[in-house]
């Protein structure tokens, strides 16, 4: 009983790694399989991207679906993407585009804005009233988020990606398919509009 069968160990480990068949398709030995890559990307970006999509879409399920589709697309293209950087960039483009078409097709933007205007403290579903929410911050957040929601789409996207995800100008430009100069301009106009609205409202 003291002997360990090394074959048994290997079998066990391979079974547990969860590296599916997609890995076998990848030629380079140092490129992780699609399953492994997606799992790592998921750990790093899932929550942030879903919340980004949610900030843009204001719809829980739609936000998750947009980001899920983006991850599936990356998995299916992993053989050509082959690096986390290019995959992350692909994810951001796919999420922004997905959120836009979601807005176009469902008109959720209008519904959200209408709701926010009529009742400033009403949030989308699955929001919980916690102790922090009742703090003074909540009011400021609410009006800031409402003001952000009234900005033109591009400005809203740029500001959300910049100040929520902390993306660089170049990353935002890539995700939105616009120039770095345009990113600068949208950011500036957006911030100016927010400042004006916050000053007016307070």
């Amino acid at each position, binding site marked *: 009983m003291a002997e360990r069968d090394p074959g048994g160990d290997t079998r066990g480990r391979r079974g*547990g790694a*969860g590296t599916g068949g*997609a890995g076998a398709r990848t030629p380079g030995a140092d490129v992780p399989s699609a399953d492994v890559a*997606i799992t790592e990307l*998921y750990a790093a970006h899932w929550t942030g991207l879903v919340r980004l999509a949610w900030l843009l879409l204001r719809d829980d399920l739609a936000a*998750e679906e947009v980001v899920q589709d983006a991850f599936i697309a990356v998995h299916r293209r992993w053989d050509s993407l082959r690096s986390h950087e290019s995959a992350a960039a692909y994810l951001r483009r796919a999420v922004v585009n997905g959120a836009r078409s979601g807005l176009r097709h469902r008109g959720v933007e209008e519904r959200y804005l209408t709701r926010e205007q009529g009742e400033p403290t009403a949030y989308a579903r699955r929001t919980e009233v916690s102790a922090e929410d009742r703090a003074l911050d*909540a009011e400021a957040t609410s009006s800031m*988020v409402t003001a952000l929601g009234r900005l033109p789409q591009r400005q809203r996207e740029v500001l959300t990606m*910049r100040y929520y995800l902390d993306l660089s100008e170049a990353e935002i430009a890539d995700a939105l398919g616009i120039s770095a100069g345009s990113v600068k301009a949208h950011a500036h106009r957006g911030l100016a509009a927010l400042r004006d609205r916050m000053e007016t409202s307070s």
Partner: protein
Amino acid sequence: MSDRTEFLHPDFEPGEFDRIERELRRSLTQESGRMRPTDRLDTILHEAHRAGPVTATGGTGMRRWLAPAAAAAVVAAIAGGVWLSNQDPTATPGPPAGSPSATVPAPTATGPSATDQPTTAPTQTSSPTTSPNSGPGVVMTFPAYFVGPVGGSTPTYKLFREFIRQEVAADPTPADKVTVALTLAMNAQPYSNTDGYLQPWSGTTVTAATVANDVIEVRLSGPGAEGFTPEVQRLAVQQLVWTAEAAVGRGPLPVRFEIEGGATKLFGSISTDQSFTRPSADESWKDLAPIWVTAPSRDQVLPSASPVTVKGEASVFEATVGWELTRGTTSVKTGNAMATIGAPSRGTYSFSLGTLAPGTYTVKVYEASAKDGSIAAEDSVTFTVK
């Protein structure tokens, strides 16, 4: 902050937007915290494999043609929550841990606890704000492992497996399944009188579970009950490991434990600073009881018109098991059967009892000691013929 001045138009003073930037950053962080994404990694991997890779030429990969079958399987799994493999925890010997939905002992067979157990809403911990799965729940069958006596004269304990049906919220995540399965496995009380299963986790609950690609993490409310031998303590941990791995269904994933309140030793003696897994197939005898009866299942009702087949797993000397069928206190039949492979490997066995007159029977399958012919290990199941 200088790293954000890149955003400022040259016409404006640096710092002009400092306040609004700070405010916006704080607001977005606070606002986004309201949205709690649910776990969709499994769905993503499933869907991606179903669709297959996109090839360099832009077309979809060769797996495309497989999609309908796979899709049907996924739909079946989601809609039904169970795959009926009908009373045949099939020919797969060895690692007996299928995914929870893989096997249903029989439509009529429920663990004694399946219905009368308080539904302790086990899913509430793993995803508190899970998406509006407002649809009806599904009934899934979970393999749950218990520490029980293997029989024989010396008190030796190993793991036994029970299939327990439990209603869960629709479309449970792997973490949900782990939580439910562990909650079932930690409640041995329904079996303790009939089967002598120990209750090392009495008073302990699962407070959270997460499933990543390469690890299952389980948070327990306490370190476990007191008064068990080191070997039983080890088995009690392995009981949870086998159950959690089976619930996830992705092979021997390492399992890590954390104890609420900062304790770092399960049962006060087993450090949580390590990961646990089930032993490889050829060493499963370390954990699993030498003999399991897997069919008929507990309290199953069988038609008198058909012969009754007994199946199970065994890791026994020279692959030989004996069996005895009793009705009440009367011995009805006895015999021997061969497992597919002998100890230390774990094989499967199967034998027929023929057609039986209506009544309630117990079949005992045992290993006779090579030394003196006494019973070294046994398992038995009671069923009814109508």
